[in-house]
Structure formats: structure tokens, C-alpha cells
């Protein structure tokens, strides 16, 4: 919103005040000022001149040679305006003067000397009217500097509208002036209002509010015999500077009042309306607003109607049929108050936001409607003294806001602020802001002024804001809390997450990524990835991505596909959320998961498979000191990107925590045939069900051990875990550990079989083992294995 300092100074004295400093204080205490504009400084030496002679320009049809009397002399100038006539009084820029960016100099235009310029309103920066030169009233001595009667010079500051959302009182100059008067501690002048009580004996306008939930107050009055059509120059200047386009006197006055008091007003042509009914229609209707658009107005939207039909969309925009025109000489002036939510929602449904609706949706003070009418009349009568008021001021007040009374004491203020603001200062601040303050020593009871009582100030904490913002946050003494020394218990699960991330990044050179919580259905389709039905978003603006992911793998595979053009070796991981359907209580079953994907052209499928498995094992050992187990899980085949055979579920002890797999060949071929891909997903919360195993320290034997490698011939598809379980049957105190060191497969040499070399380490804690006794142990072990059909490879 644009605020004029000249306008403000009508309500509070700004003399001798540094405006820049004042604006800075306003930002810190009231609302953010985004920009400051200086107007009129670039208009110099423009004086009142009268055209005394007009001749044809010999070289141009459009231009004229004009003589202008500027009091001290008569000046020649070349003028192209179509509306000039002898006797016209115009603003004339003298040589050496300035009009906007234009320096005025004696010059030749199409061969003729020109010593100045007749100016249009647009050139002076006071409206966008460039149809001809500006015509002045013939009341000023010729040669008078126009700045002596035109308020061209002004400082305009722009307040961020967002920072005013909760301050309905700051949507007009008077409210801003009130804040400034508090900051400067200078009095706020009362509004100069018209006495309407003199018309109380006239008939009232027939008004009925039929929907008191949506319309709180409707005030109006009728006026006739309006003759003046054009607004005074200075009113036009203010409107223009504050971002409104001057139109005609009546339209300008309603806008002027809105900018001055924040109260939107509407002027109907009184010849075109009779009897006001404020109501909704039972069905959706079509209504043409004054901007010429036909709008669908639904049954929730409040309308201003007369006897026959709607005449305005309440609080948003008037209708075309009853609009004031240049012919209008009598009006019905509306000044009303509507429910903020209703206006906001109607305005959203209509897709129509106006200066009026923007104000109404902030919850305006209903006490403003009557002063606004009185102020309008005061200004109108000053401009057009012959107008007649033809009705009593009519005021339907359907719903009042409750008076808000707040009790508090200085101790409460001290506690909230942490500093000592004196009771006198509290009283002064609140009084200046318009609160009715009753005070007994340090106990306060205040009544919130009507302009702050619609939603903004309701509780004690709001009073703290009023006191402190005026006190100034820059003036606060700041200090730390007095805190006891108490150890903070840190969340192990959280540090584990970071450890996992660091391990994957640093040890496995993987890259952490973030993917969306929903599936990219288009990409999934391209890749042939089928995702199961899951919880959906009902209002996504990208409707194709409305399904929440239940596993992270598809989004990670999507990243592999996107990078496949330029990357041949990839390792990506993400810790993020998925939703696995609904819980029993109907809420989403949100899970935190670790997703891992590796893709490589260098490694074989077998290698990426084992790399992925290694990553899982190392990660679990790192954070849990537990070696994970793997199990066949046929259900995993429900994901069509999982490899039906080379996949497994992951377990920590007896808790299932996830799965890993090689990519299904069908999907692989869509991404890149040469790219071998494996992925894993681990449920972090399930993983965290288990505490980390403690490290158990074992005394190391001082005697040398014996290591023996045995190559065992087994069925090709027998997994090592089975061999290990057979070995574990062999109880021997000296067998310290055993592990596979090599797997050899050769269809020709070992048809249907494979050779698994297992290394056995025998050691005693108290002596050196004899080779012969170890051999006896090995023989015993082999015999046990032979019983399971496992032989030593010869």
C-alpha cells in the first residue's frame, strides 16, 4: 500500500521530522516499508501561463505556434496539444526548468523557436491523462509557480501488504497517521466530519440486512444535485501518487475515502436503485459487474440488491447497471461492513480480488461506516457546495463485535519482556494507541479500541506486542536465561542416521539424493515400473503425481534413469519417508526408510549384487554391531522391478528390516541394457527396534593357531548358510572361526556342483596345538559333513 506523507501530515504534525528516520521507525514498530519514492522534485519552474495567440505552424499540421503570457513576459512556444484555445490557462515550463526527465531549454521544433512547454497532467506526473495540456482554473496570477497551489512534492512510502494482514486499521492513511503520532508523540487530529444529524428528520433509505452472518452493518445516505464532475487537482495528485487512477469526482471520492480511512464505499446512481436488500440468492445467477464482465455468482455469495435485482456483489464490486456515470447527479452512498471470511471465500470463488475485498477480508472496524459517510459529505460539500442531502443517514447495525476488556499487571509485562518498562510508559503507549486505560498502581484494565478489536487484539499477549513494538526492540537489554546444568539425552537413532549417511558417502563413495514423496507416474510408465495403489493426494496441481510412495525404490530408479545418459557408475542413497497404506486408526502408516541403489557398467550383475549386500552388512555392523541375515521372500515379487530370484529380505536377529534385489531384467532393459543395477530398502524404525550389540572383548591366545582351507564339493544351489549350519553342528573348543574364502563353479569340471573353500582356524588358549591333533579334528569334521552329503574336493 502506498502512503503519502502530505496526507499523513493532515492528521498529525510532521514539521521538523526527518522522514527517512520516521519511516525506519515505522518499519521496526508497525509494518515493513518496502520502498520510498520522492515525487515532484523533478518539476521545476513550471508556472501559470495564459495562451494569448495561436498560429499555424508552417512546417507541420499537428503543431501550433503559441504565445503564452507568463506575467513577466510573453513567450513563444511550439505546442502539439489538440485542446488549446486562446484564453486557456495552462502549466507552462520555462526554459531552465524541468519536467520529469526533461530539461526545458530554448530549442527549435520543426524549424520554429520554442521557449518552453505547455504541460499535460501526465507530464507533470499527476495522472495518466496525455490527451492534451492540463487546463487550470483562471484564478491564479500569471507567472505563479504551480507548486504554490499544487501539492506536487510528496514522499510516498510503500508498505508491504503482507505485513498488514493482521492490521485492518492500517489500510488507510488515518490509521497509519495514528501509528506515526504514537511514534512521534504528537497528537492525532480528529477527523473533520460533516454534520448529518441535521438530516435526521428526513426519511431513511429502505434498507434490510437479510443475512446478518455475512453483513454486520450497512450505512447509507442519498445526495442529489451534484454538478461538479472533476476532482480537484490535489485530490487527483494524491490518488495518482497512491496508485489509483482518477476517473470522476464521485468515483474519486469513494476511492479517496477508502485510502484515507480504509473503509471501502460504493456510490450507486440513486436514479437506478431503490430499497436496499442485503442477501444471498438461492441459486447461482449471472451478474454483470461494472468492469463489464458477466460473473457467475453462487448462493454463498452475498449480494446487495434493490427491489428488483442484484446491484452489487457485496464488498467486492458494484454492478454495471447502477454504476455512476458522468451524467449522474444523485447518488446512494453505501458504507458497509461484511464478514471477512465470507468476502474472502466469495472473492476466491469469483476469482475477483479488488481493493475493497482486500480490505474487507482483513476484518474492518464496523465503527468506521458512519464516519466514512460523514467524511465523504464533508469533502463533497467543500467541492460542490450546492449538493443536497436527500435522506437521513440510515444505519442498520446487525451484528456488533463485543467490547474486549483485558486485565494485566506490570509483573506480567516484566515476565514477558524480561526488561523493566515503567507503568507510566505502559499507560502512555496504550493511551496513545487508543486503548481506554484504567490503572491502579501497577494493575491495568484496558478496553481495546474498536479498530483493533475485530480480531487483532484479544488477549494479554497482544498487549505485550503493543507495548514492546512502540518501546522498540532495538532498545531491549538482551541476556541469556539462567539455566541449570542438566545433561541432554541425545537421540541415538538420529545420530545413527547421520553415521549411515557418512559411511555410505565416505566408504562407498555414494551420493545422497532427495526424491519426492510421490511417484512420478509418467517416468514410471516410461520405465515400465508398476506401483501398487496407495494413499493419494486429492488436490495436487500436478495431478499425474498424486500417489504417495510406499517404497523409495521407484523414485531412486527414476534418478538412475535420469542420470544414465551421462553416468556409468552410480551409487545413490536417501533417507526419507514413505507411506505404507493406512494404520488401524485410519491415519497414514508413515515409515522412515533408507533407500540404496547402485548401478554400474564396470561391475557385473553378480558384483553389484554382492556390493549391495556388502553395503547392507557393513552399515548394520557399523550402527548395530549385528550381522544381518538374509532370507528368501517370495512376496517381494509383487514389485515388478524386483528380480524374482536374486532378491532377499533382510533381517536383524528376528526383526525383518527390509529387502534387497537385483533389478528385474524387464526394467533394466528400459533404463540401459548395459547398466547393472541393485537396490535395497531398509526400514529405519524397524532397524532401531534393536539396540546396538555391545562390543565383547576377547583375550587373544598367546599361542599360534593352525589354519586349514578345505574345498568342499556341494550341490550348485546349496547356499553357504547351509554348509555353515552343518559345520556349526561340530562342537570343538579349538575351532575358533570358519568362513568361506572362495567359490569355484565350472559346468565342465564340476557338473551340477560347486566347490566352496572354507577356511578353518584352530587355536588353543593355553598351548600350541599339534598338527596331528588338528588333523584328527578335521577328519571328524569331514565325517560329519559327509553325513550331509558334502565331500572334500579331490
Amino acid at each position, binding site marked *: 500500500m502506498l502512503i503519502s506523507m502530505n496526507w499523513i501530515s493532515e492528521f498529525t504534525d510532521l514539521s521538523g521530522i526527518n522522514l527517512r528516520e520516521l519511516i525506519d521507525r515505522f518499519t521496526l514498530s508497525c509494518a*515493513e516499508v518496502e520502498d520510498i519514492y520522492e515525487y515532484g522534485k523533478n518539476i521545476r519552474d513550471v508556472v501559470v501561463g495564459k495562451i494569448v495567440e495561436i498560429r499555424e505552424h508552417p512546417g507541420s499540421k499537428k503543431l501550433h505556434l503559441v504565445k503564452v503570457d507568463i506575467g513577466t513576459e510573453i513567450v513563444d512556444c511550439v505546442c502539439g496539444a489538440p485542446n488549446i484555445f486562446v484564453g486557456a490557462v495552462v502549466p507552462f515550463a520555462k526554459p531552465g526548468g524541468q519536467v520529469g526527465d526533461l530539461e526545458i531549454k530554448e530549442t527549435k521544433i520543426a524549424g520554429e523557436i520554442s521557449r518552453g512547454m505547455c504541460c499535460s497532467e501526465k507530464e507533470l506526473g499527476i495522472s495518466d491523462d496525455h490527451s492534451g495540456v492540463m487546463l487550470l482554473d483562471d484564478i491564479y496570477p500569471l507567472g505563479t509557480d504551480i507548486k504554490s497551489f499544487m501539492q506536487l512534492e510528496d514522499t510516498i512510502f510503500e508498505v508491504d501488504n503482507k505485513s498488514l494482514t493482521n492490521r485492518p486499521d492500517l489500510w488507510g492513511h488515518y490509521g497509519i497517521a495514528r501509528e506515526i503520532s504514537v511514534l512521534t508523540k504528537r497528537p492525532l487530529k480528529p477527523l473533520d466530519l460533516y454534520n448529518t444529524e441535521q438530516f435526521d428528520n428526513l426519511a431513511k433509505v429502505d434498507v434490510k440486512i437479510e443475512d446478518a452472518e455475512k453483513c454486520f452493518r450497512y450505512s447509507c445516505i442519498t445526495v442529489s444535485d451534484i454538478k461538479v464532475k472533476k476532482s480537484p487537482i490535489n485530490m487527483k495528485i494524491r490518488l495518482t501518487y497512491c496508485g489509483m487512477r482518477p476517473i470522476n469526482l464521485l468515483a474519486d471520492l469513494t476511492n479517496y475515502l477508502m485510502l484515507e480511512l480504509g473503509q471501502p464505499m460504493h456510490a450507486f446512481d440513486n436514479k437506478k436503485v431503490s430499497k436496499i436488500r442485503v442477501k444471498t440468492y438461492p441459486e447461482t445467477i449471472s451478474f454483470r459487474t461494472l468492469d463489464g464482465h458477466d460473473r457467475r455468482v453462487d448462493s454463498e455469495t452475498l449480494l446487495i440488491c434493490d427491489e428488483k435485482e442484484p446491484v452489487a456483489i457485496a464488498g467486492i464490486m458494484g454492478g454495471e447497471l447502477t454504476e455512476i456515470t458522468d451524467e449522474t447527479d444523485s447518488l446512494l452512498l453505501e458504507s458497509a461492513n461484511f464478514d471477512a471470511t465470507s468476502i474472502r471465500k466469495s472473492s476466491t470463488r469469483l476469482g475477483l480480488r479488488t481493493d475493497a475485498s482486500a480490505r474487507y477480508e482483513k476484518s474492518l472496524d464496523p465503527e468506521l461506516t458512519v464516519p466514512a459517510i460523514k467524511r465523504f459529505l464533508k469533502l463533497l460539500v467543500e467541492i460542490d457546495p450546492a449538493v443536497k442531502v436527500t435522506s437521513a443517514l440510515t444505519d442498520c447495525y446487525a451484528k456488533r463485535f463485543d467490547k474486549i476488556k483485558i486485565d494485566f499487571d506490570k509483573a506480567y509485562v516484566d*515476565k514477558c519482556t524480561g526488561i523493566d518498562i515503567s507503568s507510566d510508559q505502559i499507560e502512555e503507549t496504550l493511551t496513545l494507541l487508543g486503548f481506554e486505560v484504567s490503572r491502579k498502581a501497577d494493575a491495568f484494565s484496558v478496553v481495546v479500541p474498536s479498530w483493533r478489536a475485530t480480531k487483532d487484539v484479544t488477549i494479554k499477549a497482544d498487549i505485550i506486542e503493543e507495548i514492546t513494538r512502540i518501546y522498540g526492540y532495538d532498545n531491549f537489554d*538482551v541476556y541469556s536465561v539462567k539455566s541449570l546444568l542438566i545433561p541432554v539425552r541425545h537421540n541415538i537413532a538420529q545420530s545413527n542416521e547421520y553415521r549411515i549417511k557418512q559411511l555410505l558417502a565416505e566408504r562407498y563413495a555414494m551420493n545422497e539424493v532427495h526424491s519426492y514423496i510421490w511417484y512420478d507416474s509418467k517416468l514410471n510408465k516410461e520405465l515400465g515400473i508398476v506401483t501398487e495403489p496407495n494413499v493419494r493426494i486429492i*488436490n495436487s496441481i500436478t495431478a499425474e503425481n498424486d500417489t504417495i510412495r510406499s517404497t523409495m525404490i521407484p523414485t531412486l530408479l527414476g534418478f538412475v534413469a535420469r542420470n544414465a545418459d551421462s553416468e556409468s557408475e552410480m551409487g545413490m542413497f536417501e533417507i*526419507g*519417508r514413505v507411506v505404507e497404506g493406512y494404520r488401524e486408526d*485410519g*491415519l497414514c502408516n508413515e515409515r522412515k526408510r533408507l533407500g540404496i541403489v547402485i548401478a554400474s557398467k564396470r561391475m557385473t550383475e553378480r558384483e553389484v549384487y554382492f556390493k549391495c549386500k556388502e553395503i547392507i552388512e557393513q552399515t548394520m555392523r557399523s550402527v548395530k554391531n549385528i550381522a544381518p541375515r538374509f532370507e528368501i521372500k517370495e512376496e517381494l515379487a509383487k514389485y515388478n522391478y524386483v528380480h524374482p530370484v536374486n532378491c532377499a529380505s533382510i533381517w536383524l536377529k528376528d526383526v525383518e528390516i527390509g529387502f534387497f534385489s537385483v533389478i528385474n531384467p524387464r526394467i533394466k532393459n528400459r533404463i540401459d541394457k548395459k547398466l547393472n543395477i541393485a537396490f535395497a530398502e531398509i526400514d529405519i524404525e524397524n532397524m532401531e527396534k534393536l539396540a546396538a550389540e555391545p562390543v565383547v572383548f576377547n583375550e587373544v591366545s598367546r599361542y599360534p593357531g593352525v589354519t586349514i582351507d578345505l574345498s568342499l564339493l556341494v550341490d550348485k544351489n546349496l547356499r553357504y548358510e547351509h554348509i555353515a549350519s552343518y559345520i556349526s553342528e561340530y562342537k570343538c573348543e579349538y575351532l575358533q572361526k570358519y568362513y568361506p574364502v572362495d567359490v569355484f563353479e565350472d559346468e565342465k569340471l564340476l557338473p551340477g556342483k560347486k566347490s566352496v573353500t572354507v577356511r578353518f582356524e584352530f587355536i588353543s588358549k593355553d598351548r600350541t596345538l599339534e598338527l596331528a591333533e588338528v588333523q584328527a579334528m578335521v577328519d571328524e569334521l569331514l565325517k560329519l559333513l559327509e553325513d550331509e552329503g558334502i565331500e572334500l574336493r579331490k
Partner: protein
Amino acid sequence: MFENLEKIKQQFNEELNRVESKDELERVRVAFLGKKGLVTDALKGLRDLSAEDKKTFGMQVNVLKNEIEEAIVEYQKKIEEQEYLKEINNAPRYDFSIPSDKPLGSLHPITIVQKQIEDIFKTMGFIIEDGLEVQTEYNNFEAVNIPKNHPARDMTDTYYLENGQLLKTHTSAAQNAIMRKYGAPKPGEYLKALFPGRCFRNESIDASHENTFFQMEGMMIGEDISISNLIYFMKVLLTEVFQRDVKVRLRPGFFPFVEPGFELDINCLICGGSGCPTCKHSGWLELLPCGMIHPNVLRMGGIDPDKYTGFAFGLGLTRLAMMKYNIKDIRVFNSGNLKQLRQFTI
């Protein structure tokens, strides 16, 4: 006999001078000191001597033996030194300018910035909490004082799910759960929590808009938390975050979950406050919203607002990461583009 020793000594010196390698030296050692060496041999004549001579001769042989041993050790050192120099001279020259090609992985820029800030808060005794991404309307709105029909509900374009839940629009959605989890602090203690999280807004994406972004929110509740504490705390925090002295200023700002609410500005990081295009020549950058927790929010969290006060503040993690790394396009974060993301090696 005695002349013989002199001869052995002479012979030894001659042979030693011809030695060029360790092997040759060993041969010389054996030739003189070995079991069948000349010195050992010389001792064989001992039994033919008188007791007197035996003693003298024995001593002289020992002297010779020691001399030879010492000479050999000396000579061995010399040869080792020569061999060492030879090895060094012939050593290959490794080219340190060849880069090693083992890549280091990367963390997501959000993770890095989040960790940095979490660490600062941990040193100040904050617990780190983690809220859900899918929230109830109650937690996201009602519980933080945004009742139905509140304009804030229109302002935030919320993703709603089929069951009436929503994707959280701000980290404040976790406030209620955290207050309920820990309850009001004991006398003299504070509830200090930091809760980072991923938030969602139903809007179109471009270089400066994302529908998925990270925020971080913190709060501190106790019996005597004041605005003064809030300002102090924010100054300390931001000085740590930006690793330099930071000037802050507070302006009134409206957020439903705080009262009074503030916009906190810091002096511009680019120009230091003198005015530049980044701060629109104001010298200040709007950084974060903060304020005293609204009594309604405390009450709904089960904490008595007449007894306790608290402050809360929000930090745009994504925005902070953009500032830190000078990332101009917000889409980098969720792109999964390895060319971009692998640069964040910490």
C-alpha cells in the same frame, strides 16, 4: 709367530681395500675370523709357546681380532651407505601431480547444513526431534492456532490426502506432539527442542519455487522465558551459524502461532549493511520469523500459559543452503542430478 700376526694384519688391510660388496666383505670376514680363518689359524701355534709368550701372544691375537672386527663393521657401514645411495639414485620418481581417481561420495546439501545447525543447538542443550511428514489437520493447523476459516489456511496451498490428512506445510506441525511428549519443564529447567523437517506446498515449481523443501524450527519453553532472552538467543545462534558477528533487528510480524510475532532481519551478508542489490539497498536481509509462543499453542500442547512462556523460531533450511552454497536454482535439491549433487563432499 709375532711377525705372522703383522703379516695377517697387512694381508687383511689389503684384502679389505679390494672389497666392494657385502658378500665380499663376508668372505673376507670368514677368511680371517671364521673357524678356519687366518686369525683362528694363528692361535693354533699357541701351544708351542712358553707360558709367558702364550699370554702375550694370546693378547696380541685378541687385539688383532678386535681390530679386524671393528674394521669390518666400519667397512660394512660404508658399503651400506654406498648401496643406499645407489638405490636412491636409481629410485623411480613418482609423479605426485597425477590425480588419484578414487571419488569421494557426497552428502545432500540439506544434510550438511542441517547437521551444522543441529550441532550448534546440541551444544546449547537442545534435543533434536523429528516430526512426521504426513500430519493431521489438527497438528498442522488447529494446534498452532490456525483455526478453520483462518486466512492462513488459504495462504498455504496444502496437499490434502484421501483420508483427510495432509502433507505438512510447516515444521510447526510438530510443536504440539513435542510439547505433549516432554510436557512442561521442571522448575528451573527448560524444554529446548529443535525440529527440522521436510515441508510441502501445492504450487508450481520454478527456479525459486519448490513444492518440497526443508525447514527447521526451534522452541524453548520455561517459567521465565522473555523477549529479551529471545533476542539474545537469536543473536548467539546466528553468530554461530554465519561464523561472524551478526547484527539483528526485530520487526513486528504476524504469525498465528506466536504473539508477539517478529520478522528477524540480519545485516546484509553481501554488503555488511551499507546497501546493495541483494538487500534491495536497505542493508538488511529478512531471515526468519520468530516470536513468543502463543498462549493457545501452549495450552493445546498441555502446558499452562499462565505459568510458562516460550519462544519459537523458524529457519528455512533450503534457503539457508542456497545462501551458503550460492545455489540460484532451487530445483537442484530434488533433482537427483549427480553432476550437481556430487559437489557436496563437505
